[in-house]
């Protein structure tokens, strides 16, 4: 089997990730932050180690600013909804996933509006111009997908962060596709909330994601700003009826997914040991090869910028719907994803078919031989 659906979730995982999850489940899976016994403290320790690992990977000195969530969608919901207030305006890009579009759309009912800037330009200047022209006096938040989940397009988050800072606008970054392949510096990029999954480029298990808040959110009056929408127990201040006023516990109600977080900790260490640059270069090499082959194949339409770098290839084949082609590839032992990839805005921006396209996405565990096998099987399918 060839697995080319790594933008959905990476597979396989490093051996150390499997070992870490199993060790946690077998030997120390107490409820973290609840009790004083050895198993609970051991689970809490692993969680703190993972917070530290995340903070250092994204150049933060504050492990306590890491909030664990189930996935990026939860992270983005918390980041957006905790910061937005009635009367505010939010700007999102035209490449955003539904994990951004749907939350901001739901806020319309709460008196919060949103606009869309064009991020499908190849030049940074054009993207920044589009953002500037869409900023309103009440724009309080700008959201940017760092790397698109359907195409090798990367937004200039450092420049957008600078713009946000100069206009006193909060900056939320969706790093679902870039965490693990880009060296992201939360301070240099002026990011207020960095949202990422554990199970994609960081090679952890499904069931964990996180928000890394900037240090700016350490000493706010949360009742005035960071709103909660999930409340419950978290082992501290139990007498009080409201959630603690500080991060991360303010947003961590209920038991955390300790085994998944233990796996993520191992995944982060794997990524650090290999290096984000090496992983990016490897995926990009595979993308370049496949793009080259497909661009010389009759009946194939490729989408997205021709000169961009990344680990994703989006295409369609004449006489096949995207799902028909994905099904044929599946029967040939190749896993890809077809359809709209939860990103109707981005598909519209890239002008794909109404029913989307086929996406190939790589990880560090893929190789050039798999690309060649993929092409042979694709050619056979197309010739039938």
């Amino acid at each position, binding site marked *: 089997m060839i697995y080319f659906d790594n933008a959905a979730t990476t597979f396989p995982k490093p051996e150390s990730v499997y070992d870490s999850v199993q060790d946690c489940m077998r030997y120390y899976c107490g409820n*973290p*932050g609840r*009790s*004083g016994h050895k198993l609970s*403290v051991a689970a*809490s*320790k692993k*969680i*703190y180690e993972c*917070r*530290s690992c995340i903070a250092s990977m994204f150049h933060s000195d504050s*492990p*306590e600013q890491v909030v664990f969530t189930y996935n990026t969608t939860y992270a983005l919901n918390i980041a957006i909804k905790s910061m937005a207030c009635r009367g505010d305006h939010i700007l999102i890009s035209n490449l955003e996933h539904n994990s951004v579009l749907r939350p901001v759309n739901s806020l319309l009912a709460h008196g919060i509006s949103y606009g869309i800037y064009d991020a499908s330009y190849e030049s940074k200047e054009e993207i920044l111009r589009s953002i500037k022209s869409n900023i309103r006096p009440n724009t309080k938040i700008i959201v940017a997908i760092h790397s698109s989940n359907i195409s090798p397009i990367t937004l200039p988050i450092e420049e957008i962060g600078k713009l946000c800072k100069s206009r006193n606008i909060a900056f939320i970054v969706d790093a679902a596709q870039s965490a693990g392949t880009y060296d992201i510096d939360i301070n240099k990029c002026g990011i207020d909330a960095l949202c990422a999954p554990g199970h994609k480029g960081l090679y952890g298990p499904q069931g964990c994601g996180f928000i890394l808040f900037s240090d700016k959110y*350490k000493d706010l009056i949360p009742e005035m700003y960071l709103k909660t929408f999930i409340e419950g127990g978290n*082992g*501290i*201040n*139990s*007498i*009080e009826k409201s959630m*603690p006023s*500080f991060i*991360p*516990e303010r947003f961590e109600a209920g038991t955390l997914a300790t085994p998944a977080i233990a796996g993520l900790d191992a995944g982060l260490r794997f990524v650090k040991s290999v290096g984000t640059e090496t992983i990016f270069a490897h995926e990009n090499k595979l993308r370049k090869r496949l793009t080259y082959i497909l661009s010389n194949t009759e009946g194939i339409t490729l989408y997205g910028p021709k000169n961009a770098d990344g680990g994703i290839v989006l295409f369609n084949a004449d006489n096949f719907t995207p799902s028909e082609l994905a099904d044929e590839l599946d029967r040939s032992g190749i896993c890809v994803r077809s359809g709209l990839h939860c990103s109707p805005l981005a598909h519209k921006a890239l002008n794909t078919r109404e029913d989307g396209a086929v996406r190939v996405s790589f990880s560090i565990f893929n190789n050039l031989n798999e690309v060649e096998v993929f092409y042979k099987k694709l050619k056979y399918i197309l010739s039938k």
Partner: protein
Amino acid sequence: MTSYTIAISTMTLAFKAQQVLGQYSIPSSIIKIDPSQTKKGCSYGLKMNYYHADNAKRLLTQNSIKFSELLR
């Protein structure tokens, strides 16, 4: 040996505090503090030799780690 416990509101900060103190060779262990000893309910503490208490408090303050009270 008399031990001192510095109360810290969360397990997360308790680990951060333990790490900071560890960098200055101050050993400590994390314990759960009885809710009756605090005003807000469950919290955690760093237990250490009383000899280190003043130094530990100074280091935690320097590192902006809040601690609410000192229990003997």
